[in-house]
């Protein structure tokens, strides 16, 4: 449904996107991840046809973005990062405007708007002014505005920023349902848990390039992450008490002699590790951490702060 090949974009001398390629199939939910300034929003803007690429090709629903924008726009829904709503209008008025702009007549617009409002749980708030809605309701309305014309491709740019857990849950469920109904979804966010919950695949970009792509497990595996166990002893254990265990290493120097963090090769060895720790000393508390997408993200993009904002 979405085929991006060799996408490139520069703002002046700054290279924002460089040979970005990925695809999203119908019914597939793809997470687009990357630190600030990585090129996510630029990619979304290009796909949303509001920004022209310098190089590369984009095909959406079978149409070439360079030549068939109108056809693409008719099949595309965009949930921008900001609340792209008119705050002085009612929820319904906002929806009607976007539905009419998509070509619906007045009658069709009323029907589509009612469906969209119902889908995001705002049917009872249709006549309320947007400025008076809660943050979560605004986010849901923001999503509804992108769904009102029932697009084949949905682009979401951090759709759950600043919302309450209930609204977040509703939004994520709605997105998942859209995927189930065959909509191709490109989900851009910083919340890794949302990607792990919703997305089938992940495209990780950094410095304008795709640094990894695949399922969450594939990315975690690609990052080389290993399980960790964190142990707190009543009294300091003997030094290097774990050396007899194979493929076990201390992850970081312990801040306290009572505290030890170990990295090991498989979760199946947790029992063995605990037994050896008990033998070394009295264990007061322990926690086991399985490698996840966040670990993979940090491993693949590094720990350096990214304070710069994306352009475009």
């Amino acid at each position: 449904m979405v085929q991006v090949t060799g996408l490139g974009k520069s703002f002046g001398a700054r290279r924002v996107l460089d040979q970005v390629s990925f695809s999203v199939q119908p019914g597939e939910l793809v997470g687009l991840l990357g630190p600030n300034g990585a090129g996510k929003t630029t990619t979304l803007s290009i796909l949303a046809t509001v920004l022209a690429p310098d190089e590369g090709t984009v095909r959406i629903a079978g149409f070439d973005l360079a030549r068939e924008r109108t056809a693409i726009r008719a099949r595309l829904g965009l949930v921008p990062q900001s609340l792209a709503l008119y705050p002085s209008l009612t929820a319904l008025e906002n929806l009607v405007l976007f539905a009419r702009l998509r070509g619906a007549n007045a009658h069709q617009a009323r029907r589509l708007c009612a469906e969209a409002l119902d889908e995001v749980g705002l049917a009872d708030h249709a006549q309320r002014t947007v400025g008076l809605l809660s943050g979560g309701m605004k986010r849901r309305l923001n999503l509804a505005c992108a769904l009102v014309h029932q697009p084949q491709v949905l682009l979401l740019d951090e759709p759950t920023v600043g919302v309450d857990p209930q609204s977040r849950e509703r939004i994520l469920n709605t997105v998942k349902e859209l995927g189930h109904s065959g909509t191709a979804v490109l989900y851009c966010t910083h919340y890794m848990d949302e990607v792990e919950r919703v997305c089938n695949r992940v495209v990780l970009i950094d410095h304008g390039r795709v640094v990894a792509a695949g399922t969450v497990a594939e990315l975690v595996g690609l990052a080389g992450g290993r399980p960790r166990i964190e142990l707190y002893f009543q009294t300091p254990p003997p030094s290097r008490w774990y050396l007899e265990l194979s493929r076990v290493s201390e992850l970081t120097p312990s801040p306290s002699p009572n505290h030890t963090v170990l990295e090991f090769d498989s979760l199946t060895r947790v029992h063995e590790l605990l037994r050896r720790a008990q033998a070394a000393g009295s264990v007061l508390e322990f926690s086991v951490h399985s490698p996840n997408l966040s670990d993979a993200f940090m491993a693949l993009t590094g720990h350096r702060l990214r304070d710069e904002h994306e352009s475009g």
Partner: protein
Amino acid sequence: MIWRTTRLILVNEFRLLLHDRAALFMMFLAPVVIIAVAGFSLGNLYGVRPDRGGYVVALLDQDHGVVARTVRDALSRAPSIRVRVVSSLAQARQLIINDDRAPLALVIPAGTSAAFAAGGKPAIELYVDPLKRLQAAEIQAQLVQIGRHLQIAAQARAQHQLDLQSTALRAHLEQLAAGARTASSQADAYVRELKAAQKQARSRAQNAIRRRLSALRSRTQAAIDRSVAETKTALAAELGARQGAIAALTQYLRALQRSQAEFQSWLDRLKQLAGAHADQIPPPPTWPTAPTAAQLAILSAPIKITAATPVLPPIDDSFNLPAMPIKLPPPTQTPALSDLVPTVTTLPGTVGWNTRSLVPGRPQVNSFDQYVPGFGITFLLIDMLWGVGVGLIDEREWGTLQRLRAGGAPVPGLMLGKLSARLLIGTFQMVVLFGVGWLLFGISLGPAPAMLLVPAAAIAFAAGSFGLLIACVARTRDAVLPVGSVVAMAMSAIGGCWWPLGFEPAWMRAVAMWMPTTWTMRAFNDLMIRGLPPSSALIPGVFTFALGLGYLIIGLIGTVRFYD
């Protein structure tokens, strides 16, 4: 798609406006408030106060004469002035200090009327509160006018009296002239008679003189003749007596001559006789030379005298008598009546002025005729700044612009929709303001009120384009408002929205020609104040539209560059 977008955005703009109470306030209520404040505050700049209160003038009448009455009556009739009579300067001072509407006190000194009537130059004293100099100046202008009217009235009265006196003088002089003409005729007759008498007298005198001279000449000649005869006789007797004496003398002399010769001969003999002693003989005395005989003969010759009759000069009997010692002057010419009556029969006039409208409009301007369109334009610019400039930036920041574009709405369509809506809204705003101005403040809508729509629509278009242009220049909400407000207010001020364009220096007026506000105000002024025909608004309307089109082109280029 572009037309559908335009239509939907246009409708949406109206919907947004209807939900925006602040914008509605700024569009309709705020201008009316500011217009009312400006109109009531600065109405006197245009000569007519819109309210009934007006300025208070303290009047201290120490004259109690016609001047004081005239001034007081004239001030009382002025629509913008109320007269408060005070009894002392201290009371006047108190009134001026305590009353914001009292800028000056008028003191008419005692004797002003008398001095004025006597042709003097009395002065009315004005005591001005320096803090209210501007208001005082306006009243002073009215006082000048009153003074002029007073002078004109006095001159008219004096002129009337002068005319009456001149007429009486003319009649009197005509009588005098008639008498003079009679006297002149009588004098002419007298002169003629006198001349005849003179001629007659001269003739008689000449004859008498001629006769007397003739007699005198005869008597004189006879007397001369007698005298000559007597003289001749006496002379002959005298000469005879002398002739005998001379003969005796002659004989003596002759005897002397002989004695001389004999003496010489004696002497010579003596010398001979003396011989050697001859040299010692002294020379004898010289004998005088005796007259010659001829001479002596003359003495004795008889005297011959011929007495000629003296010739008397002829008597001229043709001399004229001397002119009469008292000569009458020639008869006096009767002067023309126009010469007798003073040529200056009128007092010099005063140069004044009558204020009339050069154009069909009223000469007196309602200040709201200026401020309703002026501040209407100002608020239109500011509202467009909000509606188009800030609105565009808001849409970009909200993300609706991106969503609209992603939804297939082309930027030109979006801009066209926004500007079309703002054009209609702005025109409607001006219509409402003119309606309010007409209802509340009595502004003039000119001979063709519908024609006001032309400049209103043109400035609405230009203002919308201006908002778009500012959004492209400033590009952030924080920048659009200060930059746009300053530019909008400068355009309003320079363009003559707040005060007449003529107040401004030449360079500023030259700059103003490049502002749509200038042309729009010109159109409104021509239609509302000057009352010119509807066609007068066309050219300013075209200029306004052209400038707006320039803004639009630049704004669209900027929009595509910065917002697309």
